[in-house]
């Protein structure tokens, strides 16, 4: 159907689609979780917030799980090298995520206030920590990660967990945390009413401003940073391993794709436009539009980072030549083809029943609704 090079490119896009799907879908329930202890002034408020995402958070989390599975299937070396190298960063995300299923399900099963408060903070950690760490991870991709590959493709990592928490990576963490919290706040503003809605709108504005500032700062930082540049690579239509190319470093190298294809600048511009629409409209009742605009910001911010890095997926700071790219860290042509068919068939099905589920559960969640369905709701 497609030649190998096209398949490799399609799979770079598909992994991007999964990450974007994660940010839009799981992002909004993580945003709600992050805001939970701050916007929910009493137990009923917090139950309103939790129940706005209660029927959907589990389905949304599958975007994350599936992204993990897709990286395994399409980029086995990335899955192997990144997750074993960034061992404690990934475990931190997993341990934080553990709080979510149990937090949602168990919190309101007992009336004890200490029990409920404890799980509220658990839901906060399960939402804010992953949202932060994803940005930190991207920040480290821009700087390169210290790993090597031997000639049997065994990877070894020579960095420490603490080195991941450098200033640029933390700035990227602020970008992702404010992005997903904005996503949660705009979603929540559409699903709740009254004083809680007013607090939500304020939160959305704060997150929007923080996002604009941190995204701009990160962009300026990247412009001065030494990027990675592909100096030579065999024909990308062939069977490649990461040991066959040469990689150099150049100041501003991460802007090469934007400079070569200036029409790509539309992507970061759309990020500003999305946040701008949120700031302009959320106060005047355009809550659904704000959520859509925030989702556009999710797409644009992630694509901006992806396009800047392309074709690099996991650059190596200590051995740049073995950096993993979308051309040489992929699965075989047959696996990519089979998995493309699977994705083409099932993604529309997933989107169809997910939107049906949102339609079934549509409408404002009110304090009265919580009181009337005390035993059925989270």
């Amino acid at each position: 159907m497609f030649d190998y090079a096209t398949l490799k490119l399609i799979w770079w896009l598909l992994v991007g689609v999964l990450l974007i799907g994660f940010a839009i879908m799981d992002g909004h329930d993580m945003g709600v979780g992050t805001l939970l202890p701050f916007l929910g002034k009493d137990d009923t408020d917090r139950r309103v917030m939790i129940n706005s995402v209660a029927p959907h958070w589990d389905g949304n989390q599958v975007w994350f799980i599936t992204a993990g599975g897709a990286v395994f299937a399409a980029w086995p070396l990335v899955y192997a090298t990144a997750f074993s190298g960034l061992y404690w960063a990934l475990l931190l995300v997993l341990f934080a995520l553990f709080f979510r299923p149990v937090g949602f399900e168990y919190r309101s099963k007992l009336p004890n206030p200490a029990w409920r408060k404890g799980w509220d903070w658990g839901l906060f950690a399960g939402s804010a920590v992953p949202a932060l760490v994803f940005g930190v991870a991207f920040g480290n991709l821009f700087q390169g990660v210290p790993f090597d590959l031997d000639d049997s493709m065994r990877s070894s990592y020579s960095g420490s967990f603490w080195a991941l928490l450098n200033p640029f990576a933390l700035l990227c963490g602020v970008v992702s945390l404010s992005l997903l919290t904005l996503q949660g706040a705009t979603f929540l503003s559409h699903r709740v009413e009254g004083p809680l809605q007013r607090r939500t709108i304020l939160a959305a504005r704060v997150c929007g401003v923080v996002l604009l500032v941190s995204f701009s700062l990160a962009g300026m930082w990247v412009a001065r940073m030494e990027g990675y540049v592909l100096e030579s690579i065999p024909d990308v239509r062939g069977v490649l391993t990461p040991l066959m190319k040469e990689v150099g470093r150049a100041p501003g190298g991460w802007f090469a794709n934007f400079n070569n294809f200036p029409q790509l600048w539309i992507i970061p511009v759309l990020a500003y436009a999305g946040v701008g629409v949120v700031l302009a409209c959320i106060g005047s009742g355009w809550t659904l539009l704000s959520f859509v605009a925030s989702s556009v910001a999710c797409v644009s911010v992630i694509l901006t980072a992806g396009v800047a890095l392309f074709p690099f997926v996991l650059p190596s700071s200590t051995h740049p030549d073995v950096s993993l790219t979308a051309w040489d860290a992929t699965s075989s042509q047959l696996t990519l083809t089979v998995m493309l068919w699977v994705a083409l068939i099932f993604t529309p099905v997933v989107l169809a029943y997910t939107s049906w589920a949102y339609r079934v559960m549509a409408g404002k969640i009110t304090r009265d609704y919580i009181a009337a369905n005390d035993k059925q709701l989270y």
Partner: protein
Amino acid sequence: MINETVVDLSRLQFAATALYHFLFVPLTLGLSWLLVIMEAAYVMSGKEVYKDMTRFWGKLYGINFALGVTTGITMEFQFGTNWAYYSHYVGDIFGAPLAIEGLMAFFLESTMVGLFFFGWNRLSKAGHLTVTTLMALGTNLSAVLILIANGWMQDPVGSAFNPVTMRMELTDFAALVFNPVAQSKFVHTVSAGYVTGSLFVLGISSWYLLKGQHVEFARRSFRIAAAFGLAGTASVIVLGDESGYSVGEAQRSKLAAIEAMWETEPAPAGFNLIAIPNEARQANDFELRIPYVLGLIATRSTSEVIPGIKEIREKNRQRIESGIQAVIALEGMRKNPQDEAARAAFKAHEKDLGYGLLVKKYVEDPRQATPEIIHKAAMDSVPRIAPLFWSFRVMVGLGIAMLALMVVAFWHSVKGTFQNKPWLLKWALYSIPLPWIAIEAGWFVAEYGRQPWTVFGVLPTHLSASSLSVESLWGSIAGFVGFYSLLLVAEMYLMFKYARLGPSVLHAKTA
């Protein structure tokens, strides 16, 4: 050389997290279909008691489901964190069913579970039943795909080694999906889940009947669970995994180890009911043997010979010697891709490549493998006997015990006399833990029995692990076990509390 402690700790961590995960999955598998049956009864009869049953058992389902999801997140990523070389070496094949599971099964299950809990007043009766059915379907589909992945580790079909990329690659997707080992594993595993769900409902219903509470509710629950449980138990035993062991050569060493069968015997081989295996002597110190039975169970024939452990080890020794040539030739090809002699040598020994890698546990350079090292590697090629022998017998013994319970429960359920039989109700109540013990023992047999391989005949376990530090592993093992144990305590507390409250919790104003 790869640090042996790191490999052992990685195995320990995988075993601990998988065994934890598998405390919750089987109940989800079984209970989801029981919910479908109960809700179908509600939709067809219109009786509120069936709706109460669906919702109450659904509440317990949710308490269990939450930890299934929690412990499941780990499994999706742990191949990368702790088994990086495995992930590189076989990700081209193994990653596919995992990704498909997400797209095809997890999304369905996880989206529908939300509507199952919160959609009661927003969907029609038929609409909600459809949601419950799709949720059960998603759960079971997920088991299909995981067992396709696991089945491939037991019998790696549809794939070939690529010397350029230094990994196994997919050659036949249909062979991967329709792997007979995966199919028999799927039927066996989901049936075990059905038994777990049934015994859970049967036991708790019996407790209500013993207490004289919620009698109508408990009677109907008991009957459904007894019927479904009998079907599940029969299926789990008749379609037992053992039929799969004879399918490929892959499972022969596991079968011989499970049966503590040292010598190849004339067909049909006898079955050791009890044995005290002695690894040093390669013989049993004691055995109680039933003639012919093993041959009949394992091969379904009276003429097929089952090889004994000693014969398997001797054959493997020869394959290791041949495989060492493949490893050496492969290194030559990596240094000089134009080396025709190395190419020819690799071609000649390629099918034994995995066996050649077995000596890397003892020497970095396979050229230095002495006959002693080859002998040690050949001894390793069959896992230790006693743990497999006994865990298999625990599993089978409990299976038979549960079959007996289900037969009696079903008999009295048909006659309508079960609620007057306190001994039966107590028997069912105290049997609740049995399926969990049997299932964990079964997991152990399947995975420990595959040793020393992660992928049978292809990739040894000791090469599969990530290059992590011993400290990191101790830290993460402590983190997982500690965190999971705390969550398990919370889960058990809520489970007991809600089971005690019973269906009245659905209607009470305050709990």
